[in-house]
């Protein structure tokens, strides 16, 4: 049986790495190996997980320095005997071992504008056409793993920005509201200064790590930045609005 050499973060903020050798079988993912570690050598290891299918977004961690889902990282991607470093999400405060406190994200979620749907039509239904919503179906794939929030350098390297910056996961949510065919929010509601779209410098790390393959930067952030330009920075539009009234 092949053996994995794991280096796992243990403890809280002042913890350290502890090294373990764990046997594994072909076809296993990192989460399986961590579970085996928990069952055989480290009964008190704290880890958050739920579905083991890449759908609940709970098992996010940093594996060899890259933010990933443990349940979607195959052991086959490592060389036999390679040291595999497993750390908690570094951007968020550690509770214990691999479990972090991601509640900052919940507080940001509370500031998101809600969809304000226009009323039902004469038949009592709200109808939408496929061509108006297919663009947004990509955004609905988000599993809230917060891996994108973790990797984003705006808050990872500069936590003081946490008050002015919603982060890529929430830009996806804003784009979902902004592009919704029935939404009645004013255009400015989704591109307001407070969400910190201007802090993003489109370096695309969020897109690189998203386990759902959402094109966060190209399909959510850049379109929102363009809508911001419409709203605040396009002199030609501003003159047009002055001359012909608000569009």
């Amino acid at each position: 049986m092949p053996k994995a050499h794991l280096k796992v973060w243990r403890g809280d903020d002042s913890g350290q790495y502890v090294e373990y050798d764990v046997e594994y079988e072909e076809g296993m993912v990192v989460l399986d190996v961590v579970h085996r570690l928990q069952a055989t050598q480290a009964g008190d290891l704290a880890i958050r997980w739920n579905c083991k299918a890449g759908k609940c977004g709970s098992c996010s961690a940093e594996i060899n320095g890259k933010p990933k889902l443990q349940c979607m990282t195959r052991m086959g991607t490592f060389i036999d005997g390679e040291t595999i470093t497993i750390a908690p999400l570094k951007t968020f405060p550690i509770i214990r071992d691999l479990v972090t406190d991601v509640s900052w994200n919940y507080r940001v979620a509370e500031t998101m504008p809600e969809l304000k749907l226009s009323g039902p039509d004469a038949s009592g239904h709200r109808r939408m056409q496929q061509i108006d919503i297919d663009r947004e179906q990509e955004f609905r794939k988000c599993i809230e793993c917060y891996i994108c929030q973790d990797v984003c350098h705006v808050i990872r390297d500069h936590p003081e920005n946490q008050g002015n910056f919603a982060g890529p996961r929430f830009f996806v949510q804003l784009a979902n509201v902004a592009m919704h065919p029935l939404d009645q929010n004013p255009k400015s509601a989704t591109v307001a200064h407070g969400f910190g779209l201007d802090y993003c410098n489109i370096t695309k790390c969020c897109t690189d790590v998203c386990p759902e393959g959402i094109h966060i930067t190209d399909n959510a952030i850049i379109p929102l930045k363009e809508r911001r330009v419409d709203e605040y920075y396009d002199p030609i539009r501003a003159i047009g609005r002055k001359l012909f009234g608000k569009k």
Partner: protein
Amino acid sequence: MAQATDIQRRYGKTQRVDRWWIEPALFGGGLLAFVIYSTVSALILGNSWHFEAGPYLSPFFEPLIKPGWVPEWISPAVFILWAPLGFRTTCYYYRRTYYRSFFMSPPGCAVTEPAKSYSGESKFPFILQNAHRLFLYVALVFIPILWYGALKAFWLDGEGLGVGVGSLILTANAFLLMMYTLSCHSLRHLIGGGLDCFSCSNYTRTRRKAWDILSLANEHHKGWAWASLISVGLADLYVHLVANGVLTDLNTWSNF
């Protein structure tokens, strides 16, 4: 502030074990090479290094603007290059690249950046990136101009229609520059991305179709950006080498 240093204190600069620095080094090096080449070729050497050969004109000088009052030491390229320079500097793709390679903001994903504070594009000077759309309008005007230059390259005064290696290079270059412009994120937004309802009218349905097509091109914006950057540099070099007698152009004309 405390936490950033915390991350470094706990884990060091990065725990990535792959060679994450290759990409920023390679792309940053490529950009730097182009900036140096184009500055030397178009601005420093300018009039002293011939840029016209037969029916060919280097794309750095297209369209040729040479009013009499401009002294000889000023390159006619200054009337042209501000436009592509502004367009490419504010381009979403190039921004990503030079922020990573030159500003190390961040040097790689999940690699700690050196800067102590960060305000992204929310303050001067980077807030000026929002002018990208204005440069796009100018770039759109340049598409027909570059095609005109490419078509002109098939017509030698005194002999008429013909074809040479230079004509093919200038045509490929006009095509790649056009594709780079058409795959622009701002254009994708203007053509249809800014709409919330595509099904509302025939007009918006048509814009949706255009958006679909531009989105296909946009997915490869990075590819078009590099292909056109390399082609414009090579086209400039080729025309210069022919104009200065270093290379002979293979063509169907008898006196060129």
